[in-house]
């Protein structure tokens, strides 16, 4: 009988030790990079659409991220620690995104390298911010993401206003007199369309005669197209995603529209050409940041991606790849995973080589160079038309 209290005391002590031990381990993963054990992996979190309307994009991004990760790990990792990727599903919707972000935070993510749909990425900013986790956003590019001037948010894709500026430049350069802007009412798409309209509304050049909104996930846009054609525009700019973009291009041509069609970066995908059909897609312009297809020296990267996944890289594969490399570089420079130090390292980054060119962040944490260019569908392939430089 007497032995029992002693025994339980001993076991309590052991449990206590274990708990504190574990606690330290968890803390180490969270904030104090210094206290982390050398064999703890550096965890990168990636919030991407894996279900829902944009589910097709998720694998393009996570595959490319994994590719970057494997390359870094093959070279021995960062600070002697391996990298690890944890993904969560944002389904391109705000509720799922918030849940996914909380899940990643609980799993002890050190840096976030995800974010595709702007509408889904916006609600995750405070969640990662509260946990002191820097965010390198590879694809989402609504101006709203940086308008709040949050210290931990970095965009490595051009912003909506940069894209709108490129669109306006090209529409004017083409000598168009009247332009119609079409968007799908998502944060990303509406942002670009309205910014382009504001730019076009300035005196001189083309005039924005209509902003037409469509409902995503429909198949038939004939009602919208009848509205568009009634304005007899000579330029139509669609700022949404490729699923609708392909249908809209096809249905515009079927309805007898002869003017120019241009799409935004969310529509740049070989699938756009497939959906529209080669005939309707021919000559469609696009505003896009640098892609492997238009970049010299990216053939090796495309080949590596193909070899690993037996598929072509898709939209935002290269940005996701760059986001992981950038995160690794920042952690290396910061000497650990402490959020504030990583943020400082990112802000100090100068000349880090990415697909979009050497990286340096502006004070509002967007790219200072490597803006948008104009692509065109030529013989069924998306090729560079004008770098707008």
């Amino acid at each position, binding site marked *: 009988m007497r032995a029992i209290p002693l025994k339980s005391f001993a076991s309590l002590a052991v449990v206590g030790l274990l708990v504190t031990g574990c606690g330290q381990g968890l803390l180490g993963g969270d904030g104090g990079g210094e206290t982390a054990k050398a064999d703890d992996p550096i965890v990168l979190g990636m919030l991407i659409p894996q279900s829902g309307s944009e589910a097709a994009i998720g694998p393009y991004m996570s595959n490319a991220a994994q590719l970057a990760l494997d390359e870094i790990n093959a070279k021995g990792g960062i600070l002697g620690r391996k990298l690890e990727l944890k993904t969560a599903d944002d389904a391109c919707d705000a509720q799922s995104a918030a849940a996914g972000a909380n899940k990643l935070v609980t799993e002890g993510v050190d840096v976030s390298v995800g974010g595709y749909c702007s509408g889904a990425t916006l609600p995750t900013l405070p969640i990662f911010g509260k946990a002191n986790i820097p965010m390198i956003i590879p694809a989402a590019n609504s101006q709203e993401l940086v308008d709040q001037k949050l210290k931990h948010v970095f965009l490595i894709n051009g912003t909506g206003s940069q894209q709108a500026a490129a669109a306006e430049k090209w529409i004017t350069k083409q000598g168009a007199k009247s332009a119609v802007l079409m968007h799908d009412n998502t944060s990303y798409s509406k942002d670009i369309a309205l910014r382009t309209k504001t730019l076009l509304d300035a005196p001189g050049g083309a005039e924005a005669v209509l902003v037409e909104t469509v409902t995503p996930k429909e198949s038939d846009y*004939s*009602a919208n197209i009848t509205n568009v054609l009634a304005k007899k525009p000579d330029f139509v700019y669609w700022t949404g995603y490729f699923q609708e973009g392909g249908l809209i291009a096809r249905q515009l041509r079927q309805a007898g529209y002869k003017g120019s069609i241009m799409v935004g970066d969310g529509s740049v995908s070989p699938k756009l050409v497939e959906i529209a059909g080669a005939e309707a897609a021919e000559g469609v312009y696009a505003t896009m940041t640098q892609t492997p297809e238009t970049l010299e020296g990216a053939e090796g990267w495309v080949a590596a991606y193909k070899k690993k996944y037996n598929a072509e890289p898709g939209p935002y594969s290269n940005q996701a790849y760059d986001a992981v490399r950038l995160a690794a570089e920042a952690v290396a420079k910061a000497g650990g995973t402490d959020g504030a130090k990583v943020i400082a390292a990112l802000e100090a980054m100068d000349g880090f080589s990415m697909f979009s060119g050497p990286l340096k962040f502006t004070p509002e944490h967007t790219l200072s160079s490597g803006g948008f260019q104009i692509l065109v569908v030529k013989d069924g392939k998306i090729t560079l038309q004008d770098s707008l430089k």
Partner: protein
Amino acid sequence: MTQLVWNGLFVGSFYALVALGYSMVYGIIKLLNFAHGDLYMIGAFIGFAVLGAVGGVSASMALPLLLVVLLATMVLTGLAGVALERIAYRPLRRAPRLSLLITAVGASFALEYGMRAAAGADPRVYPVRLGGTSVEVLGARLTLQQLVLVGVAVVLMFGLNLLITRTREGRAMRAIALDPSTSSLMGIDVNAVISRTFFLGSALAGAAGVMAGAYYGKIDFLMGFLIGLKAFTAAVIGGIGNIPGTMLGGLLLGLLESFGTYWLGGEWRDVFAFGVLILFLTVRPTGLLGERVTERV
């Protein structure tokens, strides 16, 4: 103006085809089959697979080939509908109505994400597509292919109406709709008739799926969601459970959307469509052609 009417009728005939299945199932077992829109999606994918299997036919043969594929797909989608009923709904025949409804929502997700697991999340594009050059008729631009599709839809709907009003099978369906237990006492195999109802409704949704795939080109695993809601709306407008009413509801909804988009702008298209749904549910829940039924206690 004629363009708006034509746009509305064209889209409306798709809505009507899908809505018929909704309406028939509701009419016979009082179940709102929320998975019905996904049968339209299944139909589109089955059509895609069948086309792939028979592929290698020249483009000039596109229309006759598609009609053959359409028939094959209708049979297969019909069977899928029967399987859905057998697996998801029959075990719950005596359960409260709410459990059936919840099961239908679950079945819808199962079909969507099952198809995603099977075929991937990327949208697919039909190898054979109906495009065609458009001609002006009375100021509206339409293509021969559109006319053929509307023609097929009309033939299918008339066929269904004949089947229901003129055949023994149809009589059995109507009898069950009125009173399932008495019907079974009268020697009708209720389960078999319900299976056939699911077969017919699903086959029509499958036909609409193939036609949408062949005309618009793009199919994906979520394509059934919105059209399912629209078909439900169409059925409510015309009178859910009432076959001619449902056809009328489909065409009316197409027209409403077309004119709504013109008057109010594209962002209001769905607001308009579902606003009308709410209006009907509050003011005339039995729809335009539905009869007011007094339920005896």
